[in-house]
């Protein structure tokens, strides 16, 4: 993927993410037997929020919300520009840092708890993504995203267990049930988002759309050079994670970390070891 394609794709990622989010709300509603909002509802919300009076706690907090958007955007560009996969993963951590520092910077219990849980989310899914970078390297022979996208091997065939693990941790990265402890609307009312409003809430909200693109592109990598399969994988992952969101209840953060560390990571490691042994 050239820099220009990556740049344009990154530029329009909020739109793509917004459509995914709109679609998600429809799909989820249909699964519950409701009609759901129109597809463009996220964008209507966007314009409504932009129009609102800006109310902030203090500038530092509001600024961190904006930076979260820019950081996530940049992280997505790092991923799409075809550079090193591990670096792109760690850039994602960097963008998360802004949300966390912003969440910590106000004297609001829900915001502070949410920021802390945001870090715990990172503790849960991050090792899995590092391991999948290593696994993709093992199959395709490169850490470069552009190399993986050109690879003749289809990593999915070699890494079924790892793919399952990533699929199950998708709710953790996107903060969906059962792993939505950081936002937990009924419990801590959105966590780090609670103190944002108006334009600044919109920034945080848009950053989450970009994260959709980020996460689904990661799924896309598991198809290697076979881009049609990649598109199918994304569609499958989309429906799977909406189903999961609908049928599960929220777990607490210990259960979330335990599930990742004791079930998903071992699954990934077993896959990694078997493939390495087979190759050697």
């Amino acid at each position, binding site marked *: 993927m050239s820099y220009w394609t990556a740049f344009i794709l990154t530029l329009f990622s909020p739109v793509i993410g917004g459509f995914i989010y709109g679609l998600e709300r429809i799909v989820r509603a249909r699964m519950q037997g409701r009609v759901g909002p129109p597809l463009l509802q996220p964008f209507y919300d966007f314009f409504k929020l932009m129009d609102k009076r*800006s109310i902030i*706690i203090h500038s530092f907090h509001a*600024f961190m919300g904006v930076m979260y958007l820019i950081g996530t955007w940049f992280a997505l560009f790092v991923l799409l520009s075809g550079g090193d996969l591990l*670096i792109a993963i760690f850039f994602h951590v960097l963008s998360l840092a802004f949300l966390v520092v912003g969440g910590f910077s106000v004297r609001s219990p829900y915001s502070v708890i949410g920021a802390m849980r945001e870090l715990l989310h990172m503790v849960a899914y*991050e090792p899995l993504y590092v391991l999948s970078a290593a696994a993709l*390297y093992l199959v395709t022979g490169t*850490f470069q995203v552009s190399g993986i996208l050109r690879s003749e091997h289809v990593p999915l065939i070699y890494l079924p267990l790892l793919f399952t693990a990533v699929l199950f941790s998708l709710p953790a990265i996107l903060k969906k049930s059962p792993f939505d402890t950081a936002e937990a609307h009924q419990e801590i009312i959105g966590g780090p988002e*609670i103190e944002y409003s108006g334009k600044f809430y919109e920034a945080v909200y848009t950053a989450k759309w970009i994260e959709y693109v980020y996460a689904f592109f990661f799924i896309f990598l598991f198809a290697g050079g076979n881009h049609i399969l990649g598109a199918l994988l994304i569609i499958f992952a989309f429906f799977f994670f909406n189903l999961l969101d609908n049928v599960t209840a929220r777990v607490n953060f210990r259960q979330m970390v335990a599930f990742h560390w004791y079930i998903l990571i071992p699954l990934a490691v077993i896959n990694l070891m078997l493939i390495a042994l087979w190759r050697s």
Partner: protein
Amino acid sequence: MEKIVYSLFLVPWILALAVFLLPGAHFHRLRQLITFLSLPALSFLTYLVWNGHLPLQIETPQWLELAFTVYDYGLLLYFLYQGIKFRDFLVTVLALFQLFLLTWVLLIMPESSVPNFYVDRLSAFMFLIVSTVGTLICIYATKYMEQENLERENRFVAILLWFLGVMNLAVSVNNIEWFFALFETTTLASYILIRFRWDEVSIKNALRALWMNQIGGIAILLGLLFGIKYYGFTHFTQFLSLSGKPVIVMIPLGFLAVSALVKGAQMPFHRWLLGAMVAPTPVSAILHSATMVKIAPYLILRLSPVIKGTLLAKLLIITTGFVFVGAGLLALTQENFKKILAYSTISLLGLMMLTASMGSSMAILASLTLILFHAVVKALLFMEAGVMEKLFKAKYVEDIRRLVERAPITVAFTSIGFMSMTIVPYGIFVSKWMAIEEASNFLSHGAYVGSIIFMATGGVILALLYFKVIGVMTRKRGEFFRFQLERVPFVYLFATVPLVLFVIVGSIFIAKLLSLSVNPVVEAVIGTPASIIAKGLTLITPVSELYGWQIIGAFVLLLIVPILAYFVHFTGTDRVYEYTCGEKLELNIGTYNFFCIQVVEPFVETAAVALFILTLVLGGGLV
């Protein structure tokens, strides 16, 4: 050239003597000046060594050998005396055992004509760290002690300067018996420094540091004994001649590696380093960054060409990797700022030794980068801890709440320090990245799979820890209406600003730094340099690339933005109090201390003991 190397040991000692002989309050300025001299003097000498013809082997006269032997006995008798004086059973018994082993070694030690000093680029690399970071800490200490106890300042600074000379000497000796003497001298130095405040806790912790490090000394002596028995080897260079050949008897190497684990405060021997925090803060700074614990990765690096690929190396990878994660987990439960830093040192030392034992050129490169940046960052963070303690009376994480409102400089420096240990463009991250990618090449070995799991999980745990602390510091009540910097004494700034600048500039030009400065060291350690290329700011490794624009982008996000955050004021917006879902409650927001993790502490330690024994028994070939 020999004279330059000798003066690297002697100059700090002379300066130390000068400082020591100028007691009292009225000589304070003069002592500061003398201490300051150590920075240009030692840096210049190191520069000369670095540009000289290396490796350098120096023959020594016979009397020096005798002098070392006499010194050895004197030192061990002093330990024995301390053990009896403070009625410490362990110190006494271990000192007696050391005396016995030393006598045995001297009885069977063969005559050898191998030069007793061996200064290669690895030694020069350690000189570099000692003579910059170490001396800055000494300069810092003059101000710190002025605020604490001016009467005993001369003693304190003299010991620190003397320690630097000892450290320089320790990394350049070739004779293992001499190495033992210097290893135990650093033990002595840490013992005196930890004891410095002479209260009950200090003495107790100092004695603990003493006996734990004595075990390391015993391991060296045992390694030397078996080295003589099986090979007739008494020098490091003789062991290095084994590299590449299949090693039959691992016992001496196993013991030497174990001594490194003890010195590097790896679990279960981590408590001595934690105990060091009762001493004045410069002590922690110097023990954690430039001297003392850095002997551990140094020793492993020395041995890594020989132990590469053996069972010992693999067990070392697993043990140190486990400590990397375990110490990070335990750090989460701590609320004392210095203790958090201590645990993270233990954790990162584990990573240094892990990469050093992997033994490939990329891994060695990662290890050296880690040593360099860790020394700088840990010195910085401990100095900032001292600043917080002296200026803001903050010792616990609870105390540094909302520090950003009062002390923007301190908070900025501390945040840079913390971020540089985990986040994207900084040196420590780059070395971790190289290590993960290197380990991915060997995933058919269980040890490397272990290493990659440890690196992935340990890194994220440390990120959690650091962001927790940064979050506490940056909490604030309202707008920054008046931007005001705190008044930090000049000496403190003089010691910390160069370190911050190095972290930033070194990380931006990481590609150049690695290929021009660190890679020659890799070549000296393992024989072949790592195949990295610097193209502008872009770092090209065999399997991947770190682009310059990524580094710059991350720096813009991480450095410029937080500074900007002070000055950005959104006008045309309304200010409100926190919404908190409309609840009106008395709020007192604390911090998370993860007490739930304390449950696993006994398990972590038990597992660490088991791994430690496994390393010695299986890795050392004692079965």
